[in-house]
């Protein structure tokens, strides 16, 4: 077969791979077809990778042994590491793993751009057409690499989840951003011939841009509180897609451009949806907004005076003799890894004839839909998980609402203007006949305000870690 024929077939295989990504994402619309969709997307990836290998081996001059070794050994190490971590990670640690995979993806995009830039610079074939995309790819990839590592580190607890403010930090961030933008502009203008850059200085400028990108990723994410990390990861995911598309422009490769643009769009939409659900603008979050998530857990009891404390035995009686119970799981449940404990209690109550449902706020947990994943992993029957719009009217008929580690999403203050949570959609927990809140302390949510629900006369507070509190409740119900 001639070179041209092989390249045509490879190109069509790349397009087929890209089509699989689009169709695969489309099939992720519904829980019934989502898994097939992901597999279709994986198949598209396999086709694209194999086609690339065939293209590289078959083209004129073939591929050197060292290049083949780099591809095979690199794939074995990276793929093996990815497979192992993806299989062994606990589902509660999954958001930070996604963040890590996003970081390495951004890093790979930056490296592809950097290598391409250096090679073209050495051979003197740098042109404006490619320089723009090479420099943007290197810059964006660098930002997402360190940004995602910091975001994952925060979720993992390696870096304090709370908002970290460096004195004058904003000026440092702005300064770094300015260096990156000016360096990028200089490189682009240099390649257009508008400004004269000494040939030796070009690589130094690129190194400066990459370094500024790496530092910017750190200073951008550090001041953002842990509870906002999902939005940040989603934004960085979108940026990595864009960086991959930039690499596609440089290499003139359609599958990189299509897949990168798809992910760029996906991440942008998802980021906006997440921010909307919290009634916050993306800008507000990126500037550092208010407070940091994990602070809530460390805060000391005693903030609100008029709360009523309740014991596990009393709660057990209420639950066991109720007809309708709605469980409201939140961030605290995810942190305490109490999803199995809550499923056990739910099953026990169901076996006593109690109707049990789970109210899932759009931003419960650490990512939208994260709570569904955690509860599904613990084998909570899917039909018992109710989304906010569906469950809210049912609180009026509910005997006991059991709130586990959820705070701001239940605060009735959101219905009034003038509070930091105003306008945020909330679960109508206060409409229930009786409310029980399992919480470690009177600490505040990341909005940093008191929750009026806790001082409601209908509310009893059970101060405990979510896992321990649920275990105590289960034991108490069994003893009845």
């Amino acid at each position: 077969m001639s070179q041209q024929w092989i390249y045509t077939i490879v190109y069509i295989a790349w397009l087929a791979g890209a089509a699989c990504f689009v169709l695969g994402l489309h099939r992720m619309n519904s829980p019934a077809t989502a898994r097939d969709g992901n597999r279709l997307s994986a198949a598209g990836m396999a086709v694209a990778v194999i086609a690339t290998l065939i293209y590289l081996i078959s083209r004129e001059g073939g591929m050197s042994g060292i290049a083949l070794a780099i591809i095979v050994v690199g794939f074995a190490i990276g793929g093996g590491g990815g497979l192992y971590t993806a299989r062994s990670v606990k589902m509660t640690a999954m958001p930070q793993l996604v963040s890590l995979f996003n970081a390495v993806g951004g890093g790979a995009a930056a490296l592809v751009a950097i290598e391409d830039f250096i090679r073209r610079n050495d051979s003197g074939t740098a042109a404006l057409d490619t320089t723009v995309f090479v420099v943007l790819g290197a810059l964006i990839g660098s930002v997402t690499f360190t940004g995602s590592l910091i975001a994952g580190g925060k979720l993992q607890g390696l870096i304090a989840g709370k908002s970290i403010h460096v004195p004058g930090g904003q000026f440092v961030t702005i300064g770094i951003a300015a260096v990156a933008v000016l360096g990028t502009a200089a490189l682009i203008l240099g390649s257009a011939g508008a400004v004269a850059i000494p040939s030796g200085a070009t690589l130094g400028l690129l190194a400066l841009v990459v370094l500024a990108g790496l530092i910017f990723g750190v200073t951008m994410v550090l001041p953002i509180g842990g509870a906002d990390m999902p939005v940040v990861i989603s934004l960085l995911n979108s940026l990595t897609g864009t960086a991959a598309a930039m690499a596609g422009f440089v290499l003139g490769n359609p599958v990189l451009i299509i897949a990168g643009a798809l992910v760029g769009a996906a991440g942008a939409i998802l980021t906006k949806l997440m921010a909307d659900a919290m009634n916050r603008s993306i800008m507000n979050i990126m500037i550092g907004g208010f407070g940091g998530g994990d602070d809530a857990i460390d805060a000391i009891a005693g903030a609100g005076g008029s709360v009523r404390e309740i014991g596990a035995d009393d709660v057990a009686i209420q639950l066991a003799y109720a007809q309708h119970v709605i469980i409201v799981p939140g961030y605290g449940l995810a942190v305490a890894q109490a999803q199995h404990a809550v499923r056990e209690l739910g099953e026990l109550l169901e076996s006593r004839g109690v109707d049990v449902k789970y109210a899932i706020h759009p931003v419960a947990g650490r990512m939208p839909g994260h709570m569904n994943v955690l509860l599904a992993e613990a084998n909570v029957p899917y039909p018992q998980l109710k989304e906010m719009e569906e469950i809210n009217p049912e609180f009026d008929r509910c005997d006991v609402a059991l709130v586990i580690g959820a705070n701001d999403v239940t605060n009735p203050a959101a219905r009034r203007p003038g509070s930091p949570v105003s306008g945020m959609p909330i679960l109508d927990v206060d409409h229930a006949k009786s409310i029980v809140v399992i919480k470690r302390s009177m600490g505040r949510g990341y909005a940093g305000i008191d929750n009026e629900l806790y001082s409601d006369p209908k509310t009893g507070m059970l101060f405990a870690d979510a896992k321990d509190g649920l275990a105590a409740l289960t034991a108490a119900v069994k003893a009845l």
Partner: protein
Amino acid sequence: MSDQLLTSLAIFTLAILVGFEVISKVPTTLHTPLMSGANSIHGIVLVGAMIIAAEANNPFGYLLAFIAMVFGAMNVVGGYVVTDRMLQMFRKKPTAAKAGTEGATDAPGA
């Protein structure tokens, strides 16, 4: 600008629009798997890493290509496997009218 670049820009623009259309229809429940699935797709940069591995012509280039290969492969393989693990949990279909009773009988002790 070259023809190839203009064609690439057209592809880029259309792919962004397709992305918006495909993704805006996904329900909240699936947002985390979707994010993870989209995360795996940008692992396509692995193809870029393979191409620069073949183009590289000096030790520093080889080193960059090797790291890019490791990173890209990790993104692709790990991303798809972890997404599949998440989606495995949604195997019970909520569509059927009798889904409620199905779910209840699945649970031991019900």
